[in-house]
């Protein structure tokens, strides 16, 4: 097949100018990174932000508003950036490099150490940080600002691309709002009101927010008075009460594609890469093992960390090690037996192995407690476990690989293979939720648009062409499969639990008796 790039995909003059404007904005950041000392930092920072935003906005308006409303995937597999071409690899390498520097060498970004002033890129962001919270910027402030910018400007682009689709628009407004308000502005204002409070993004829920229950974090909350205690309680309620209720009613999408910041970036800046996720069965197998391993790792790590700073008696915390370990094992055992009793028939073989492995871990925790292996877990210090988790999962997996590799493996690598929060939500979505994607009778033509554009690598077509509903733990409910379907076959729905999973071929159209026969014999 010819690889001649179709002319229709060439950029218009207006779009080329928009790219130049955006690159100018980025260039200011690059100069700052190269330690050019700008005289009027606030002016240059503002100029940079405005140029980047203006470039993206002009580009997107030219790309979508000149065309009719509808699906806009023309040339997705011809463009260098979105089809793993040279530009795709360059963007991937630049992003990966940025994450490595951000996590491991912030001094290269200009972070002032030992009380020294910030210089370089971080120094450029000082005026904005001063404006919001009256303190100098950190590498995390810079990252947070750029992250929020990305969600806002590419969110705008997405809104234009899907302007015919109200589900997509509302969902995108939602992630833009939650990023700007909850992840960016509110934590800064909270600091202004009470600077004992640790940074807390209210929508970032444990175990995604893996440091929430660290000793320093808990102590900081507790020392910040009632508001601190309230926030800590909110963190506990989020995962144990709010999450199960919302996931039961709406599926995991309420979080993953409406609220979460990782999801927010994936759905906006990551949208041009969604078709790059692997749909192979082997990728699905790997996904199931990997994501549940991370979940077990995070549960064990958090338990060990909390356990190690709790005392033996009530003098330090009201919660003693004995009570805590009883709570954890009790909760996990109830969960395990409940699922095994009521839902075991819905499990695949490897899911059973996984569940049994999980239960073994709980038992080991108990043994650990009663044999008095105090601050070690499986002969590893809990602090070592914690730093390993922070390094390998928190930084490398979620940042460097999860975002840096967008143009190579697709935009949901972290959400699909690594996020422990997604694993918990997915587990519930598969077993106790009203959410499903309904297949419309016999209308599927097996074209494969749904599977191609599923960012989570679900082979949606495999279900649709058999007339099965799609009930998969990994589905984040982005709704793109339903949007790109040319025959109106897929619909995201919350309906009753009964008949939600229909693992039989019920394609409508043929002789009713024949279809009954097909199902019976299966």
């Amino acid at each position, binding site marked *: *097949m*010819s690889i*001649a*790039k*179709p*002319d*229709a*995909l060439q950029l218009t003059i207006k779009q080329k100018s928009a790219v130049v404007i955006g690159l100018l904005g980025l260039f200011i950041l690059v100069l700052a990174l190269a330690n050019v000392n700008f005289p009027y930092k606030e002016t240059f920072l503002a100029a940079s932000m405005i140029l980047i935003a203006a470039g993206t906005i002009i580009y997107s308006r030219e790309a979508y508003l000149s065309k*009719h*409303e*509808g*699906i806009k*995937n*023309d*040339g*997705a*597999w011809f463009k260098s950036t979105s089809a793993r071409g040279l530009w795709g690899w360059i963007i991937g390498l630049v992003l990966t490099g940025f994450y490595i520097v951000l996590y491991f060498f912030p001094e290269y970004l200009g972070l002032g150490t030992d009380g020294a002033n910030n210089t370089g890129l971080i120094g450029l962001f000082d005026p904005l940080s001063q404006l919001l919270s009256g303190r100098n910027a950190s590498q995390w402030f810079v990252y947070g600002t750029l992250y929020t910018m990305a969600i806002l400007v590419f969110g705008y682009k997405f809104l234009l691309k899907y302007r*015919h*689709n*109200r*589900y997509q628009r509302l969902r995108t407004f939602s992630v833009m709002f939650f990023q700007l308000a909850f992840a960016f502005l509110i934590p800064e204002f909270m600091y202004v009101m009470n600077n004992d409070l640790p940074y807390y993004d209210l929508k970032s829920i444990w175990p995604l927010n893996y440091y929430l229950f660290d000793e320093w974090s808990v102590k900081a909350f507790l020392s910040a008075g009632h508001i601190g205690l309230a926030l800590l309680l909110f963190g506990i309620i989020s995962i144990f009460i709010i999450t199960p209720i919302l996931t039961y009613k709406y599926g995991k999408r309420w979080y993953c594609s409406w609220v979460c910041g990782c999801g927010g970036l994936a759905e906006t800046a990551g949208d041009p890469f969604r*078709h790059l996720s692997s749909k*192979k*069965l082997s990728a699905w197998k790997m996904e199931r093992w990997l994501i549940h391993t991370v979940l077990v790792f995070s549960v064990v790590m958090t338990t060990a960390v909390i356990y190690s700073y709790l005392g033996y008696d009530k003098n330090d915390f009201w919660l003693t090690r004995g009570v805590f370990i009883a709570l954890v094992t009790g909760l996990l055992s109830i969960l395990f037996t409940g699922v095994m009793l009521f839902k075991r028939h819905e499990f695949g073989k490897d899911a059973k192995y996984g569940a049994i492995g999980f239960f073994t871990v709980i038992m080991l925790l108990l043994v650990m407690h009663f044999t008095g292996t105090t601050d070690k877990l499986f002969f590893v210090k809990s602090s070592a476990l914690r730093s390993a988790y922070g390094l390998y999962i928190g930084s490398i997996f979620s940042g460097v690989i999860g975002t840096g590799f967008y143009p190579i493996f697709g935009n949901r690598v972290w959400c699909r293979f690594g996020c422990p929060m997604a694993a918990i939500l997915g587990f519930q979505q598969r077993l106790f939720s009203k959410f499903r994607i*309904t297949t*419309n*009778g*016999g*209308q599927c*033509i*097996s*074209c*494969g*648009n749904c599977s*191609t554009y599923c960012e989570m690598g679900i082979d949606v*077509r*495999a279900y649709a*062409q058999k007339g099965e509903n799609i009930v998969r733990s990994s589905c984040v409910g982005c*709704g793109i499969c*339903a*949007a*790109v379907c*040319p*025959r*109106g076959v897929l*619909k*995201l*729905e919350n309906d009753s639990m009964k008949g939600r999973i229909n693992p039989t071929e019920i*394609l*409508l*159209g*043929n*002789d*009713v008796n*024949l*279809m009954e*026969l*097909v199902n019976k*014999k*299966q």
Partner: protein
Amino acid sequence: MDNIVIIGNGISGVTLARHVRKFSDHRITLISGETDYFFSRTALMYVYMGHMKFEHTQPYENWFWKKNRIELRKGIVNKVDTNSKTLKFSNGETMSYDKLVIATGSKPNKFGWPGQDLEGVMGLYHKQDLDNLEKHAPNNEVCKRAVIVGGGLIGIELAEMLSSRSIPVTFLVRESSFWNGVLPEGESQMINRHIIKHGIDLRLSSNLKEIKAGANGKVSSIILEETGEEISCDVVGLTAGVSPNIDFLKNSEIETNRGVLVNRYLETNIPDVFAIGDCAEQRKAIGNRPTIEAVWYTGRMMGEALAQTLCGNRMPYNPGHWFNSAKFFDIEYQTYGWVHSKKKKPDYEAQFHWRHEDDTKCITVAYHKDTKMFLGINTFGIRMRHKTFNQWLSEERKVDYVIEHLAEANFDPEFYARYETEIVDAFHKKLQIA
């Protein structure tokens, strides 16, 4: 254990093979001259448009066939000897069978136009047509204009494909309005306007007279029958329908007409030889259906039915209520039951038509003018639930019931604007006038 040989790896042949494997241990061989593996023909357009790569059109990974013991054989059968139960391939090899299934699909129609076999003239059906199009119309410099002949579903898809690469398209439609042999007038005219809005040079009531070659032997222009106008172009797409792809059966004893003649059990005149999908022709029409149904869904359904017969449970092809779907540029279309065009409308059929003011959504509901029984619905730009309409058709609901309960059948994504109230009002207003 039988040795079942299926010629054709399209949706009919593959559905049959999958179902036979599910219910039996018969040996299954799938023969294709087109591709190594099954792909979804309906998705070829998205490969040209860059939405997908060709591999994405393959619904099963390549290991699937071996795992399910379905043998694949690439080759073209050019002779069938039903006495010795042997197939002869174009390369001289032979293959024997116990049961033979012909599932060779269709080929684009050519009506003897001068120049119809020139380089740059093509249909859009096979994988090879896609490769050919990529060769002759990679961009609007190589292909300065394309002319499409034939206003059906494939024609409008080809128009959408070419315009995705900014290639100017002239679209010749024989009828006075797009696809109005099938669609009622209101719908057909809405699609006319939509086609024009997408920058297509739509020529209604226009026929092709001849295709002319340039100095290089390739297409250089076409001449219109009605006006004699000459339109220069680099590609001509022939999309004036399809017909059964059964030339290789000419000298066999298998009885054919336009397609391979079969009874309700999909059996031909020769024992142990069957035909399914586009290439099968029913000896007697089933209900309102044409004797040759060149539709994705019916091919699949025939495969399901014949699999039962081949596994020892003789079953007729007994399709349920008619349904179909398509997409015209940005407008999706679904149909359930029968809604007839102006030309084909039976006397008893009355229609209620509603169109949204934005000119991208409309529905037509057909009902019996005396009994008021609901007969079918065409819906454009609003997705509707197959299951609900299937049920209403089986329950023989009255048209009032269907209109009043239309909201239950809505299948649009969440938060979409709803039009049921407007439709119900329009329906009652129409009744008052009538």
